[in-house]
């Protein structure tokens, strides 16, 4: 009888897997695997992927039909998955779920936690991570987070691997050239309106620039388009987050509101200008990037002062340090993710 709780029909017997990528989070498995699969493909190491819920399995088979994607529901099914892959040496975990215990009991395998896109921001690091043999971290900052949170990290190894997914951006932006392009990021909360009022004045000062404006709030799209026509500005509004990276790579600087201060912005190797509404106390804000690496302004005069000295980019050194500390840029460019 064929069990509905397991599907290992995609095991590639002619190319037995040495490593297995595992995700047990029903809601996030597809996202997690999609985030990592390119890194695994590029490694040229034979790998399989183990999913723990049928929907994610089906979706992943549809998305990546060429790869050895497996499904096991119960502990006994996981055992069959391991038994069927004799060459398996290591398992890579994208999430720290209770179900991981079904695999962690296999002492002959090396258990490595690699997390997901947002793992660096993990605030809830806890002792259960000690079940793994290694935690691949992007940078020193993560190691410190672990040590502060759980104290005794015992046997755990923390190889710094950087962010493989940012490798291409890091390479492309190593030596930036002036492009007279600028990227603006605004969110959909009520900060936007005050941000846009200030930005409106700022934009008028950047007539020679091609401007890319990521706008989550469609309410303002009409106004800005009209503003752009009235003032003969080259403003390109976009809503697709996927395009963000595309525009950022070619920009000279990025202007953001407080909700958009994401660590990944550091990968573009350009100044980041943060708009801080006058009424907010900047010291109270919990930002993903330290203030020492950000230019801040609250009105268009302050923006202009910064803009005029941007060529000198006095914060570059500090930004580089922060980029290394938070994203492990050097390791990303120089270290192989997999040690074969």
């Amino acid at each position, binding site marked *: 009888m064929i069990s509905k709780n397991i599907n290992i029909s995609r095991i590639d017997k002619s190319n037995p897997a040495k490593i297995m990528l595992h995700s047990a989070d029903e809601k996030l498995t597809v996202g997690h695997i999609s985030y990592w699969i390119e890194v695994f493909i590029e490694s040229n190491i034979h790998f399989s992927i183990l999913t723990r819920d049928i929907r994610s399995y089906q979706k992943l088979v549809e998305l990546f039909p060429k790869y050895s994607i497996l499904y096991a529901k119960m502990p006994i099914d996981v055992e069959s998955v391991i038994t069927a892959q004799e060459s398996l040496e290591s398992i890579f975990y994208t999430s720290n779920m*209770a179900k991981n215990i079904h695999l962690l009991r*296999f*002492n002959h395998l090396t258990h490595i936690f690699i997390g997901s896109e947002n793992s660096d921001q993990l605030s809830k690091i806890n002792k259960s991570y000690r079940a793994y043999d290694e935690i691949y971290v992007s940078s020193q900052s993560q190691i410190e987070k672990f040590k502060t949170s759980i104290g005794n990290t015992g*046997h755990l190894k923390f190889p710094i691997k950087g962010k493989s997914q940012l490798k291409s951006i890091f390479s492309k932006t190593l030596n930036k050239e002036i492009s007279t392009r600028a990227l603006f990021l605004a969110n959909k909360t009520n900060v936007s309106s005050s941000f846009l009022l200030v930005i409106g004045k700022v934009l008028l000062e950047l007539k020679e620039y091609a401007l890319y404006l990521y706008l989550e709030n469609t309410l303002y799209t009409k106004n800005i388009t009209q503003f752009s026509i009235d003032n003969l500005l080259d403003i390109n509004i976009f809503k697709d987050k996927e395009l963000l990276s595309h525009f950022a790579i070619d920009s000279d600087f990025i202007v953001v509101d407080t909700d958009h201060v994401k660590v990944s912005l550091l990968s573009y190797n350009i100044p980041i200008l943060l708009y801080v509404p006058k009424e907010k106390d900047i010291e109270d804000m919990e930002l993903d990037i330290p203030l020492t690496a950000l230019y801040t302004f609250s009105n268009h005069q302050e923006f202009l002062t910064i803009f005029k000295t941007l060529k000198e980019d006095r914060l570059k050194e500090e930004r580089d340090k922060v980029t290394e500390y938070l994203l492990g840029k050097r390791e990303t460019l120089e270290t192989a993710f997999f040690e074969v």
Partner: protein
Amino acid sequence: MTFMGLKKMLLHPKIFLRDYRNKNKSKKKTQSSNISQINFLTPFTHILHTGEGQHAISHIDLWIPYFIESKVDFLVLTRNMMAFNTISKKYPLVSVAFLKGEKEIESTLSKLIFLKACFYPSNTGNNLHLLKLNDLKHVFLGHGDSDKTASAHKYFRVYDENWVASDAHIDRFRNEGFDFSGLKSVKVGRPNLLQILENSTDKWRERFDAQINFLYLSTWEGVYSEQNYTSVYMATDFIKLLKDMENIKLRIKLHPRVGSRDLSLLNTSSRLKSFSEENSVDCTVYERDKPVDELIIKSNIFICDISAVVSECLAGNAPIFVYIPKDKEIKLSQSNMKFEEYTYTFSSIDELSEKLTVVLDGNDYLQGNREKAMEYILGKDATLNQKFIDELIAIEKEEI
């Protein structure tokens, strides 16, 4: 029932039934916690957590008497309604709580500000919800002492401390060859075996008016096929073997989970009862939840499988015969003392018969090693000195 309810039942029985079912369904859905027994003014310092369902009681039984004896303020935390009901009923004077999910755990435990440590008798996935509380000390207790692979694997490293009976368990981890340097091993003996140790000091042949009391303890088929070491398939052969012996008594207790994976084993108890009657063997087959220690204390020859009960039988200070299946690779988390060194191992009924005859004829050649094993595996001294209770009290005084 209200008048309206009664009217509905009589006039519209179908609607009444539907509403009744829906009412119960919604009740069931909302039952995610029961904290009625927690007195929030009690400065609880210890939590004894079980993530199990029907097996929770047997795990809790092993430890709860010593938590009570230590007089520390402790709370039994269950994650399953059935476990909550069973434990509450059996220990009405103990504070027992039921908290199903992570949210309930977080909100309730945050109110218990004196908590210092959490104790786990088994490795269940939902232990994770408590392990997220970094400020607590997390201690694995286990529910027996076994050579099976489940007793020493990498997941144990999530705990701060592993309270073990004695050196054998620490060696099992060492011999698995992985790094567990962050896990502190604390030797506490086997508190539940204290009474057996104290009552088994006489030579085994001289107990029970020279009657031989056999105890057969089978294990089950195991969660994983690699751990299926049960001899239950040859249990009728054991009975036949004793058929012509005089002055003997056979007691049988099957592992509570026999038949969970192989359904053909579900009626084993009644089959064994009938079979011994047919063969005129004085045999009692006990309920599966009968505490093993109560039977060990009455026995002076043990027949068992590779499982935690082997070490419990050691406390009985009498010959132990252990079934080692021949047809499969035995994966053990081996200590430095192998079964063959202190138990009479057998893989067939003939081998059992042969070794049993030698021992019953007076040549108990493993007696010396058995005594060594009592210290190495059980931690006889730590047990007799009630080290477990001392450690519980020490945590209460610790600054965490």
